[in-house]
Protein backbone atom coordinates (compact mmCIF):
# COMPACT_ATOMS: atom_id res chain seq x y z
CA UNK A 1 0.00 0.00 0.00
CA UNK A 2 1.60 3.31 -0.90
CA UNK A 3 1.91 5.56 2.16
CA UNK A 4 1.85 9.32 2.07
CA UNK A 5 4.95 10.60 3.89
CA UNK A 6 4.40 14.28 3.22
CA UNK A 7 1.41 14.88 5.42
CA UNK A 8 0.84 14.39 9.13
CA UNK A 9 -2.03 11.97 9.43
CA UNK A 10 -4.37 11.33 12.30
CA UNK A 11 -4.98 7.88 13.77
CA UNK A 12 -5.14 5.03 11.26
CA UNK A 13 -8.76 4.20 11.81
CA UNK A 14 -11.10 7.11 12.05
CA UNK A 15 -14.75 7.17 11.18
CA UNK A 16 -17.07 9.89 10.10
CA UNK A 17 -19.48 11.00 12.87
CA UNK A 18 -22.40 10.55 10.46
CA UNK A 19 -22.19 6.80 11.13
CA UNK A 20 -23.18 7.34 14.74
CA UNK A 21 -26.41 9.22 14.07
CA UNK A 22 -29.33 8.23 16.29
CA UNK A 23 -32.00 8.36 13.65
CA UNK A 24 -31.56 6.36 10.47
CA UNK A 25 -30.65 8.28 7.32
CA UNK A 26 -33.79 9.50 5.60
CA UNK A 27 -34.58 7.57 2.48
CA UNK A 28 -35.47 10.00 -0.27
CA UNK A 29 -39.04 9.51 -1.47
CA UNK A 30 -39.36 8.21 -4.98
CA UNK A 31 -42.41 10.28 -5.77
CA UNK A 32 -43.16 13.95 -5.74
CA UNK A 33 -40.83 16.85 -6.33
CA UNK A 34 -37.16 16.54 -5.65
CA UNK A 35 -35.38 18.07 -2.68
CA UNK A 36 -34.15 21.11 -4.59
CA UNK A 37 -37.47 21.84 -6.29
CA UNK A 38 -36.76 20.28 -9.68
CA UNK A 39 -39.15 17.86 -11.34
CA UNK A 40 -38.68 14.13 -11.72
CA UNK A 41 -39.33 12.35 -15.01
CA UNK A 42 -38.44 15.51 -16.87
CA UNK A 43 -35.22 16.74 -18.36
CA UNK A 44 -34.63 19.24 -15.58
CA UNK A 45 -30.91 19.87 -15.36
CA UNK A 46 -29.45 22.20 -12.79
CA UNK A 47 -28.62 25.70 -14.05
CA UNK A 48 -24.96 25.85 -14.89
CA UNK A 49 -22.35 28.58 -14.38
CA UNK A 50 -19.39 28.25 -16.71
CA UNK A 51 -16.34 30.39 -17.13
CA UNK A 52 -13.22 29.88 -19.25
CA UNK A 53 -9.72 31.16 -18.79
CA UNK A 54 -9.47 31.19 -15.01
CA UNK A 55 -5.98 29.72 -14.65
CA UNK A 56 -3.55 32.08 -16.31
CA UNK A 57 -0.62 29.65 -16.39
CA UNK A 58 -2.49 26.91 -18.19
CA UNK A 59 -2.94 26.88 -21.95
CA UNK A 60 -6.68 26.56 -21.42
CA UNK A 61 -8.90 26.23 -18.41
CA UNK A 62 -12.54 26.12 -17.45
CA UNK A 63 -14.64 26.17 -14.30
CA UNK A 64 -18.12 24.78 -14.00
CA UNK A 65 -20.70 25.01 -11.24
CA UNK A 66 -23.94 23.09 -11.32
CA UNK A 67 -25.94 23.37 -8.13
CA UNK A 68 -23.29 22.64 -5.52
CA UNK A 69 -21.01 20.58 -7.77
CA UNK A 70 -17.88 22.60 -8.53
CA UNK A 71 -15.13 21.46 -10.85
CA UNK A 72 -12.21 23.02 -12.60
CA UNK A 73 -10.14 21.77 -15.49
CA UNK A 74 -6.77 22.80 -16.88
CA UNK A 75 -5.27 21.83 -20.21
CA UNK A 76 -1.57 21.87 -20.95
CA UNK A 77 -0.15 21.24 -24.37
CA UNK A 78 0.47 20.29 -27.05
CA UNK A 79 3.88 19.43 -25.63
CA UNK A 80 6.55 17.41 -27.27
CA UNK A 81 6.78 13.79 -26.19
CA UNK A 82 9.69 11.41 -26.70
CA UNK A 83 8.98 9.01 -29.52
CA UNK A 84 7.98 5.89 -27.66
CA UNK A 85 6.54 3.92 -30.53
CA UNK A 86 5.28 4.32 -34.03
CA UNK A 87 1.77 5.41 -33.16
CA UNK A 88 3.16 8.54 -31.54
CA UNK A 89 4.65 9.61 -34.84
CA UNK A 90 1.29 9.73 -36.56
CA UNK A 91 -1.02 11.20 -33.97
CA UNK A 92 -0.90 12.87 -30.60
CA UNK A 93 -1.65 11.48 -27.20
CA UNK A 94 -4.27 12.64 -24.78
CA UNK A 95 -3.63 12.18 -21.05
CA UNK A 96 -6.44 12.73 -18.60
CA UNK A 97 -6.34 12.89 -14.85
CA UNK A 98 -9.30 13.38 -12.60
CA UNK A 99 -8.88 13.97 -8.90
CA UNK A 100 -11.12 14.70 -5.99
CA UNK A 101 -10.03 17.22 -3.42
CA UNK A 102 -10.10 15.51 0.01
CA UNK A 103 -12.76 17.96 1.24
CA UNK A 104 -14.98 17.49 -1.79
CA UNK A 105 -17.15 14.60 -0.59
CA UNK A 106 -19.11 14.13 2.61
CA UNK A 107 -16.38 11.92 4.03
CA UNK A 108 -12.77 12.95 3.78
CA UNK A 109 -11.00 11.27 0.89
CA UNK A 110 -7.28 10.76 0.57
CA UNK A 111 -4.87 12.55 -1.75
CA UNK A 112 -3.59 9.29 -3.14
CA UNK A 113 -5.50 8.26 -6.21
CA UNK A 114 -7.88 5.47 -5.36
CA UNK A 115 -9.31 3.06 -7.88
CA UNK A 116 -12.43 5.20 -8.29
CA UNK A 117 -10.33 8.17 -9.42
CA UNK A 118 -8.46 6.01 -11.92
CA UNK A 119 -11.72 4.63 -13.24
CA UNK A 120 -13.17 8.11 -13.73
CA UNK A 121 -9.98 9.30 -15.43
CA UNK A 122 -10.24 6.41 -17.84
CA UNK A 123 -13.90 7.19 -18.58
CA UNK A 124 -13.01 10.83 -19.15
CA UNK A 125 -10.26 9.81 -21.55
CA UNK A 126 -12.60 7.57 -23.52
CA UNK A 127 -15.19 10.32 -23.72
CA UNK A 128 -12.80 13.01 -24.92
CA UNK A 129 -10.67 11.04 -27.32
CA UNK A 130 -13.12 10.81 -30.24
CA UNK A 131 -13.63 14.57 -30.20
CA UNK A 132 -10.03 15.78 -30.32
CA UNK A 133 -8.27 15.91 -33.70
CA UNK A 134 -5.20 14.08 -32.46
CA UNK A 135 -3.94 13.49 -35.98
CA UNK A 136 -3.20 17.21 -36.20
CA UNK A 137 -0.71 16.97 -33.32
CA UNK A 138 1.80 14.24 -34.16
CA UNK A 139 4.50 13.53 -31.61
CA UNK A 140 2.68 15.68 -29.04
CA UNK A 141 0.95 15.18 -25.75
CA UNK A 142 -2.07 17.05 -24.48
CA UNK A 143 -2.72 16.89 -20.74
CA UNK A 144 -6.13 17.40 -19.24
CA UNK A 145 -6.37 17.71 -15.46
CA UNK A 146 -9.73 17.89 -13.75
CA UNK A 147 -10.04 18.74 -10.07
CA UNK A 148 -13.33 18.25 -8.27
CA UNK A 149 -13.72 20.93 -5.62
CA UNK A 150 -17.12 19.88 -4.37
CA UNK A 151 -18.94 16.69 -5.22
CA UNK A 152 -22.67 17.20 -5.21
CA UNK A 153 -23.70 14.64 -7.80
CA UNK A 154 -23.10 13.78 -11.47
CA UNK A 155 -19.42 14.57 -11.26
CA UNK A 156 -18.34 12.63 -14.35
CA UNK A 157 -20.88 14.30 -16.62
CA UNK A 158 -19.81 17.79 -15.59
CA UNK A 159 -16.15 16.84 -15.76
CA UNK A 160 -16.59 15.86 -19.41
CA UNK A 161 -18.27 19.17 -20.21
CA UNK A 162 -15.66 21.16 -18.30
CA UNK A 163 -12.76 19.32 -19.93
CA UNK A 164 -14.04 19.84 -23.46
CA UNK A 165 -14.53 23.55 -22.71
CA UNK A 166 -11.00 23.80 -21.41
CA UNK A 167 -9.69 22.06 -24.53
CA UNK A 168 -11.58 24.51 -26.71
CA UNK A 169 -10.26 27.40 -24.63
CA UNK A 170 -6.73 26.11 -25.17
CA UNK A 171 -7.25 26.22 -28.89
CA UNK A 172 -6.92 22.47 -29.40
CA UNK A 173 -8.66 21.47 -32.59
CA UNK A 174 -11.75 19.40 -31.95
CA UNK A 175 -14.52 17.91 -34.06
CA UNK A 176 -17.16 19.03 -31.60
CA UNK A 177 -17.72 19.88 -27.96
CA UNK A 178 -18.41 16.92 -25.70
CA UNK A 179 -21.23 17.35 -23.23
CA UNK A 180 -22.07 15.06 -20.38
CA UNK A 181 -25.36 14.28 -18.73
CA UNK A 182 -26.36 11.72 -16.15
CA UNK A 183 -29.57 10.31 -14.79
CA UNK A 184 -30.53 8.13 -11.88
CA UNK A 185 -33.28 5.59 -12.39
CA UNK A 186 -35.33 4.86 -9.31
CA UNK A 187 -38.08 2.33 -9.94
CA UNK A 188 -40.41 3.70 -12.56
CA UNK A 189 -39.26 7.30 -12.38
CA UNK A 190 -35.95 8.91 -13.16
CA UNK A 191 -34.18 12.07 -12.09
CA UNK A 192 -31.85 13.95 -14.44
CA UNK A 193 -28.60 15.44 -13.13
CA UNK A 194 -28.90 13.83 -9.67
CA UNK A 195 -27.49 15.47 -6.58
CA UNK A 196 -25.21 13.55 -4.22
CA UNK A 197 -28.07 12.45 -1.97
CA UNK A 198 -30.14 11.29 -4.93
CA UNK A 199 -27.20 9.36 -6.36
CA UNK A 200 -26.42 7.49 -3.19
CA UNK A 201 -29.82 6.87 -1.66
CA UNK A 202 -30.85 3.27 -2.01
CA UNK A 203 -34.59 3.08 -1.84
CA UNK A 204 -35.52 -0.35 -0.62
CA UNK A 205 -38.98 -0.26 -2.12
CA UNK A 206 -38.57 -1.05 -5.78
CA UNK A 207 -36.33 -3.91 -6.72
CA UNK A 208 -36.29 -3.49 -10.48
CA UNK A 209 -34.80 -0.63 -12.39
CA UNK A 210 -32.44 1.01 -10.00
CA UNK A 211 -29.28 2.46 -11.34
CA UNK A 212 -27.36 5.37 -12.71
CA UNK A 213 -26.34 6.22 -16.25
CA UNK A 214 -23.85 8.77 -17.58
CA UNK A 215 -23.62 9.68 -21.26
CA UNK A 216 -21.05 11.83 -23.07
CA UNK A 217 -22.42 13.23 -26.29
CA UNK A 218 -21.20 15.21 -29.32
CA UNK A 219 -24.26 17.31 -30.27
CA UNK A 220 -23.51 18.45 -33.81
CA UNK A 221 -22.27 15.05 -34.91
CA UNK A 222 -24.95 13.11 -33.01
CA UNK A 223 -22.42 10.63 -31.65
CA UNK A 224 -22.08 9.13 -28.22
CA UNK A 225 -18.48 9.14 -27.07
CA UNK A 226 -18.93 7.80 -23.57
CA UNK A 227 -21.47 5.61 -21.86
CA UNK A 228 -21.46 4.11 -18.42
CA UNK A 229 -24.19 2.58 -16.36
CA UNK A 230 -24.44 0.56 -13.20
CA UNK A 231 -27.18 -0.83 -11.01
CA UNK A 232 -29.89 -2.99 -12.47
CA UNK A 233 -32.06 -1.90 -15.36
CA UNK A 234 -34.01 -3.48 -18.15
CA UNK A 235 -32.80 -2.84 -21.64
CA UNK A 236 -35.80 -0.63 -22.50
CA UNK A 237 -35.15 1.55 -19.45
CA UNK A 238 -31.53 1.83 -20.46
CA UNK A 239 -32.43 2.91 -24.00
CA UNK A 240 -34.95 5.45 -22.67
CA UNK A 241 -32.34 6.73 -20.24
CA UNK A 242 -29.81 7.23 -23.04
CA UNK A 243 -32.39 9.23 -25.01
CA UNK A 244 -33.13 11.37 -21.94
CA UNK A 245 -29.45 12.07 -21.43
CA UNK A 246 -29.09 13.11 -25.06
CA UNK A 247 -31.96 15.56 -24.57
CA UNK A 248 -30.24 16.90 -21.46
CA UNK A 249 -27.06 17.47 -23.48
CA UNK A 250 -28.96 19.39 -26.14
CA UNK A 251 -30.38 21.62 -23.38
CA UNK A 252 -26.91 22.38 -22.11
CA UNK A 253 -25.37 23.08 -25.53
CA UNK A 254 -26.39 26.75 -26.03
CA UNK A 255 -25.12 27.72 -22.56
CA UNK A 256 -21.73 26.20 -23.22
CA UNK A 257 -21.47 27.75 -26.68
CA UNK A 258 -22.27 31.19 -25.27
CA UNK A 259 -19.68 30.86 -22.53
CA UNK A 260 -17.03 29.88 -25.06
CA UNK A 261 -17.92 32.77 -27.40
CA UNK A 262 -17.76 35.19 -24.46
CA UNK A 263 -14.32 33.93 -23.49
CA UNK A 264 -13.00 34.29 -27.03
CA UNK A 265 -14.41 37.81 -27.30
CA UNK A 266 -12.82 38.77 -24.00
CA UNK A 267 -9.45 37.42 -25.03
CA UNK A 268 -9.43 38.99 -28.47
CA UNK A 269 -11.83 41.94 -28.57
CA UNK A 270 -13.17 42.71 -32.05
CA UNK A 271 -11.42 45.60 -33.81
CA UNK A 272 -13.26 48.83 -33.19
CA UNK A 273 -14.62 50.61 -36.22
CA UNK A 274 -12.73 53.81 -36.79
Amino acid sequence: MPTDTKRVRGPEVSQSPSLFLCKPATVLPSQGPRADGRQRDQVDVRPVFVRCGLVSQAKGSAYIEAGNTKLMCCVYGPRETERKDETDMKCGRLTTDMRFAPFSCLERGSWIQGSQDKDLSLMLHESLQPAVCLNKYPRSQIEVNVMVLENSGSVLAHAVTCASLALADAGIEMYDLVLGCSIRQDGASYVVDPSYMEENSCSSASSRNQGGLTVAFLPSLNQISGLQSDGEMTEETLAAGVRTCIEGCYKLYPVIQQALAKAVRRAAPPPSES
Partner: protein
Amino acid sequence: MATVQVSEAEKVYILHGIRDDLRVDGRGCEDYRHMEIETDVVSNTDGSAKVTLGHTAVLVGVKADIGKPRPMVPNEGYFEFFVDCSANATPEFEGRGGEELGTELSNTLYKVFNNKHSVDLKSLCISAGEHCWVLYVDVLLLQCDGNLYDAISVAIKAALFNTKIPRVHISADEEGGKEIELSDDPYDCMRLNVENVPCIVTLCKVGHRHVVDATLQEKACSVASLIISVTHKGTVTCTRKVGGGSLDPESIFEMTEAGKRVGKNLHAPLMKLLQQEESLGKTRQKVGFLG
Protein backbone atom coordinates in the same frame (compact mmCIF):
# COMPACT_ATOMS: atom_id res chain seq x y z
CA MET B 1 -4.64 -4.99 -24.01
CA ALA B 2 -2.22 -6.97 -26.11
CA THR B 3 -2.27 -5.69 -29.65
CA VAL B 4 -1.41 -7.09 -33.02
CA GLN B 5 -0.34 -5.13 -36.04
CA VAL B 6 -2.88 -5.42 -38.81
CA SER B 7 -2.19 -4.12 -42.31
CA GLU B 8 -4.70 -2.03 -44.24
CA ALA B 9 -5.44 -4.83 -46.68
CA GLU B 10 -6.19 -7.22 -43.82
CA LYS B 11 -8.46 -4.65 -42.22
CA VAL B 12 -10.45 -4.27 -45.43
CA TYR B 13 -10.69 -8.06 -45.74
CA ILE B 14 -12.01 -8.43 -42.19
CA LEU B 15 -14.43 -5.52 -42.63
CA HIS B 16 -15.91 -6.88 -45.84
CA GLY B 17 -16.25 -10.33 -44.34
CA ILE B 18 -18.09 -9.06 -41.28
CA ARG B 19 -20.36 -7.01 -43.51
CA ASP B 20 -21.48 -10.30 -45.02
CA ASP B 21 -21.80 -12.03 -41.63
CA LEU B 22 -18.73 -14.17 -42.21
CA ARG B 23 -15.72 -13.81 -39.94
CA VAL B 24 -12.18 -14.93 -40.63
CA ASP B 25 -12.56 -18.19 -38.70
CA GLY B 26 -15.96 -18.98 -40.20
CA ARG B 27 -18.15 -17.87 -37.29
CA GLY B 28 -21.24 -15.72 -37.57
CA CYS B 29 -21.29 -12.27 -36.00
CA GLU B 30 -22.91 -13.47 -32.78
CA ASP B 31 -21.07 -16.76 -32.26
CA TYR B 32 -18.60 -17.50 -29.51
CA ARG B 33 -15.41 -19.44 -29.94
CA HIS B 34 -14.95 -22.85 -28.42
CA MET B 35 -15.20 -22.47 -24.65
CA GLU B 36 -13.88 -24.92 -22.06
CA ILE B 37 -14.72 -24.60 -18.39
CA GLU B 38 -13.35 -26.59 -15.52
CA THR B 39 -14.04 -25.97 -11.84
CA ASP B 40 -12.19 -26.98 -8.70
CA VAL B 41 -8.76 -26.80 -10.24
CA VAL B 42 -6.91 -25.22 -7.31
CA SER B 43 -7.26 -27.12 -4.06
CA ASN B 44 -6.20 -24.34 -1.70
CA THR B 45 -9.10 -22.10 -2.58
CA ASP B 46 -12.71 -22.26 -1.49
CA GLY B 47 -13.77 -22.24 -5.13
CA SER B 48 -11.96 -21.99 -8.41
CA ALA B 49 -12.53 -22.24 -12.13
CA LYS B 50 -10.50 -22.13 -15.30
CA VAL B 51 -12.01 -20.96 -18.57
CA THR B 52 -10.44 -21.22 -22.01
CA LEU B 53 -12.16 -19.21 -24.74
CA GLY B 54 -10.33 -19.78 -27.99
CA HIS B 55 -6.78 -18.91 -26.99
CA THR B 56 -7.74 -16.74 -24.02
CA ALA B 57 -7.24 -18.54 -20.70
CA VAL B 58 -8.40 -17.20 -17.36
CA LEU B 59 -8.07 -18.71 -13.88
CA VAL B 60 -10.25 -17.50 -11.00
CA GLY B 61 -9.79 -18.40 -7.36
CA VAL B 62 -12.28 -17.49 -4.62
CA LYS B 63 -11.25 -17.40 -1.00
CA ALA B 64 -13.62 -16.68 1.87
CA ASP B 65 -12.26 -14.85 4.88
CA ILE B 66 -13.97 -13.62 8.00
CA GLY B 67 -13.84 -9.87 8.26
CA LYS B 68 -15.61 -6.82 9.57
CA PRO B 69 -18.62 -5.68 7.55
CA ARG B 70 -18.73 -2.27 5.93
CA PRO B 71 -20.00 0.43 8.31
CA MET B 72 -22.92 1.51 6.09
CA VAL B 73 -24.25 -2.02 5.57
CA PRO B 74 -23.58 -3.95 8.79
CA ASN B 75 -25.64 -7.02 7.90
CA GLU B 76 -24.04 -7.87 4.57
CA GLY B 77 -20.80 -9.43 3.45
CA TYR B 78 -18.92 -8.11 0.44
CA PHE B 79 -16.71 -8.96 -2.51
CA GLU B 80 -13.19 -7.87 -3.28
CA PHE B 81 -12.05 -8.27 -6.86
CA PHE B 82 -8.51 -8.29 -8.05
CA VAL B 83 -7.34 -8.94 -11.59
CA ASP B 84 -3.74 -9.79 -12.22
CA CYS B 85 -2.43 -9.61 -15.75
CA SER B 86 0.38 -12.09 -15.54
CA ALA B 87 3.50 -11.62 -17.63
CA ASN B 88 2.82 -15.09 -19.04
CA ALA B 89 0.04 -13.65 -21.13
CA THR B 90 2.10 -11.23 -23.18
CA PRO B 91 5.47 -9.53 -22.65
CA GLU B 92 3.66 -6.16 -22.46
CA PHE B 93 2.42 -7.16 -19.03
CA GLU B 94 5.85 -7.53 -17.57
CA GLY B 95 6.46 -5.62 -14.34
CA ARG B 96 3.81 -2.94 -13.94
CA GLY B 97 2.69 -2.97 -17.56
CA GLY B 98 -0.43 -4.94 -16.88
CA GLU B 99 -1.47 -2.86 -13.89
CA GLU B 100 -3.59 -0.40 -15.85
CA LEU B 101 -5.51 -3.12 -17.58
CA GLY B 102 -5.90 -4.97 -14.30
CA THR B 103 -7.38 -1.93 -12.54
CA GLU B 104 -9.76 -1.32 -15.44
CA LEU B 105 -10.98 -4.91 -15.32
CA SER B 106 -11.43 -4.99 -11.55
CA ASN B 107 -13.24 -1.62 -11.51
CA THR B 108 -15.69 -2.93 -14.09
CA LEU B 109 -16.22 -6.08 -12.01
CA TYR B 110 -17.08 -3.96 -8.98
CA LYS B 111 -19.68 -2.14 -11.05
CA VAL B 112 -21.13 -5.35 -12.43
CA PHE B 113 -21.72 -6.74 -8.93
CA ASN B 114 -22.83 -3.42 -7.44
CA ASN B 115 -26.51 -4.26 -7.10
CA LYS B 116 -28.74 -6.07 -4.64
CA HIS B 117 -29.63 -9.13 -6.66
CA SER B 118 -26.49 -10.59 -8.20
CA VAL B 119 -25.44 -12.39 -5.08
CA ASP B 120 -27.35 -12.51 -1.81
CA LEU B 121 -24.92 -10.59 0.37
CA LYS B 122 -27.09 -11.01 3.47
CA SER B 123 -26.33 -14.74 3.45
CA LEU B 124 -22.67 -13.82 3.93
CA CYS B 125 -23.36 -12.18 7.28
CA ILE B 126 -22.24 -14.03 10.41
CA SER B 127 -23.15 -11.55 13.10
CA ALA B 128 -24.40 -8.11 12.18
CA GLY B 129 -21.89 -5.34 12.64
CA GLU B 130 -19.11 -7.64 13.81
CA HIS B 131 -18.34 -10.49 11.48
CA CYS B 132 -19.12 -11.32 7.92
CA TRP B 133 -17.70 -13.34 5.08
CA VAL B 134 -15.52 -11.42 2.67
CA LEU B 135 -15.13 -13.17 -0.66
CA TYR B 136 -11.83 -12.40 -2.33
CA VAL B 137 -12.19 -13.12 -6.02
CA ASP B 138 -8.77 -13.20 -7.67
CA VAL B 139 -8.55 -13.42 -11.42
CA LEU B 140 -5.37 -14.44 -13.18
CA LEU B 141 -4.95 -13.93 -16.90
CA LEU B 142 -2.93 -16.78 -18.31
CA GLN B 143 -3.28 -16.12 -22.01
CA CYS B 144 -4.65 -13.11 -23.79
CA ASP B 145 -6.35 -13.47 -27.16
CA GLY B 146 -9.10 -10.90 -26.99
CA ASN B 147 -12.43 -10.82 -25.21
CA LEU B 148 -11.13 -10.81 -21.66
CA TYR B 149 -14.34 -9.53 -20.07
CA ASP B 150 -16.48 -12.41 -21.28
CA ALA B 151 -14.01 -15.08 -20.23
CA ILE B 152 -13.53 -13.47 -16.81
CA SER B 153 -17.25 -13.19 -16.11
CA VAL B 154 -17.93 -16.81 -17.06
CA ALA B 155 -15.01 -17.93 -14.92
CA ILE B 156 -16.27 -15.91 -11.95
CA LYS B 157 -19.74 -17.39 -12.27
CA ALA B 158 -18.29 -20.91 -12.41
CA ALA B 159 -15.95 -20.25 -9.49
CA LEU B 160 -18.75 -18.83 -7.34
CA PHE B 161 -20.89 -21.86 -8.18
CA ASN B 162 -18.02 -24.04 -7.02
CA THR B 163 -17.37 -22.04 -3.83
CA LYS B 164 -17.95 -23.89 -0.59
CA ILE B 165 -18.08 -21.59 2.42
CA PRO B 166 -17.70 -23.43 5.73
CA ARG B 167 -20.56 -23.13 8.18
CA VAL B 168 -19.84 -21.29 11.39
CA HIS B 169 -21.47 -21.39 14.80
CA ILE B 170 -21.37 -18.43 17.10
CA SER B 171 -21.18 -19.26 20.74
CA ALA B 172 -20.71 -17.11 23.81
CA ASP B 173 -17.48 -17.79 25.67
CA GLU B 174 -16.70 -17.26 29.38
CA GLU B 175 -16.30 -13.47 29.39
CA GLY B 176 -19.48 -12.95 27.42
CA GLY B 177 -17.69 -12.29 24.14
CA LYS B 178 -18.59 -14.06 20.93
CA GLU B 179 -16.59 -16.98 19.68
CA ILE B 180 -16.71 -18.32 16.18
CA GLU B 181 -16.41 -22.04 15.63
CA LEU B 182 -15.95 -23.69 12.30
CA SER B 183 -17.79 -26.95 11.96
CA ASP B 184 -15.60 -30.05 12.08
CA ASP B 185 -17.11 -31.74 9.07
CA PRO B 186 -15.22 -30.53 5.97
CA TYR B 187 -18.25 -31.18 3.80
CA ASP B 188 -20.61 -29.08 5.92
CA CYS B 189 -20.60 -25.93 3.90
CA MET B 190 -22.79 -23.27 2.42
CA ARG B 191 -23.11 -22.80 -1.31
CA LEU B 192 -23.91 -19.57 -3.08
CA ASN B 193 -26.89 -19.14 -5.34
CA VAL B 194 -25.36 -17.99 -8.62
CA GLU B 195 -28.61 -17.87 -10.62
CA ASN B 196 -28.53 -14.08 -10.80
CA VAL B 197 -24.81 -13.60 -11.36
CA PRO B 198 -24.48 -11.67 -14.62
CA CYS B 199 -22.32 -12.53 -17.59
CA ILE B 200 -20.51 -9.88 -19.56
CA VAL B 201 -20.84 -9.68 -23.34
CA THR B 202 -18.43 -7.54 -25.32
CA LEU B 203 -19.67 -6.24 -28.65
CA CYS B 204 -17.13 -4.64 -30.99
CA LYS B 205 -18.27 -2.23 -33.64
CA VAL B 206 -16.57 -3.19 -36.89
CA GLY B 207 -17.67 -1.17 -39.88
CA HIS B 208 -21.45 -0.97 -39.68
CA ARG B 209 -21.98 -4.22 -37.82
CA HIS B 210 -21.11 -5.50 -34.40
CA VAL B 211 -19.39 -8.75 -33.50
CA VAL B 212 -19.44 -10.79 -30.33
CA ASP B 213 -16.24 -12.37 -29.00
CA ALA B 214 -13.78 -10.50 -31.17
CA THR B 215 -10.27 -11.83 -31.70
CA LEU B 216 -7.31 -9.48 -31.46
CA GLN B 217 -7.30 -8.92 -35.23
CA GLU B 218 -10.97 -7.95 -35.25
CA LYS B 219 -10.41 -5.68 -32.28
CA ALA B 220 -7.69 -3.86 -34.21
CA CYS B 221 -10.25 -3.08 -36.93
CA SER B 222 -12.91 -1.75 -34.60
CA VAL B 223 -13.16 1.78 -33.31
CA ALA B 224 -15.21 1.20 -30.19
CA SER B 225 -16.77 -1.60 -28.17
CA LEU B 226 -19.66 -1.84 -25.80
CA ILE B 227 -19.46 -4.01 -22.70
CA ILE B 228 -22.80 -5.09 -21.33
CA SER B 229 -23.43 -7.38 -18.39
CA VAL B 230 -26.67 -9.33 -18.50
CA THR B 231 -28.38 -11.59 -15.99
CA HIS B 232 -30.36 -14.68 -16.93
CA LYS B 233 -33.60 -12.70 -16.75
CA GLY B 234 -32.33 -10.10 -19.19
CA THR B 235 -31.67 -7.24 -16.76
CA VAL B 236 -28.64 -5.18 -17.56
CA THR B 237 -26.39 -4.52 -14.59
CA CYS B 238 -23.57 -2.59 -16.15
CA THR B 239 -22.77 -1.08 -19.52
CA ARG B 240 -19.68 0.68 -20.59
CA LYS B 241 -18.28 1.98 -23.81
CA VAL B 242 -14.58 1.32 -24.30
CA GLY B 243 -12.25 2.31 -27.02
CA GLY B 244 -11.18 5.56 -28.60
CA GLY B 245 -14.03 6.02 -31.06
CA SER B 246 -17.58 7.30 -30.85
CA LEU B 247 -20.81 5.43 -31.49
CA ASP B 248 -24.09 6.45 -33.02
CA PRO B 249 -27.02 6.32 -30.56
CA GLU B 250 -28.85 3.95 -32.93
CA SER B 251 -25.95 1.52 -32.96
CA ILE B 252 -25.81 1.63 -29.18
CA PHE B 253 -29.48 0.63 -28.99
CA GLU B 254 -28.87 -2.13 -31.54
CA MET B 255 -25.81 -3.41 -29.70
CA THR B 256 -27.56 -3.36 -26.31
CA GLU B 257 -30.40 -5.41 -27.74
CA ALA B 258 -28.01 -7.91 -29.34
CA GLY B 259 -25.94 -8.08 -26.17
CA LYS B 260 -28.99 -8.78 -24.07
CA ARG B 261 -30.05 -11.55 -26.44
CA VAL B 262 -26.63 -13.18 -26.54
CA GLY B 263 -26.10 -12.80 -22.81
CA LYS B 264 -29.44 -14.30 -21.91
CA ASN B 265 -28.71 -17.33 -24.06
CA LEU B 266 -25.38 -17.85 -22.37
CA HIS B 267 -26.76 -18.56 -18.91
CA ALA B 268 -28.90 -21.67 -19.37
CA PRO B 269 -26.24 -23.86 -21.04
CA LEU B 270 -23.65 -22.62 -18.54
CA MET B 271 -25.73 -23.60 -15.49
CA LYS B 272 -26.56 -26.93 -17.03
CA LEU B 273 -22.90 -27.61 -17.69
CA LEU B 274 -21.86 -26.64 -14.17
CA GLN B 275 -24.53 -28.81 -12.60
CA GLN B 276 -23.54 -31.71 -14.84
CA GLU B 277 -19.90 -31.35 -13.87
CA GLU B 278 -20.85 -31.24 -10.20
CA SER B 279 -23.01 -34.33 -10.47
CA LEU B 280 -20.09 -36.37 -11.79
CA GLY B 281 -18.57 -36.04 -8.34
CA LYS B 282 -15.62 -38.36 -7.76
CA THR B 283 -15.87 -39.99 -11.18
CA ARG B 284 -14.94 -36.73 -12.88
CA GLN B 285 -11.75 -36.82 -14.88
CA LYS B 286 -9.64 -33.80 -14.01
CA VAL B 287 -8.10 -32.21 -17.05
CA GLY B 288 -6.08 -29.55 -15.28
CA PHE B 289 -3.66 -27.30 -17.07
CA LEU B 290 -2.02 -29.64 -19.53
CA GLY B 291 -5.04 -31.18 -21.20
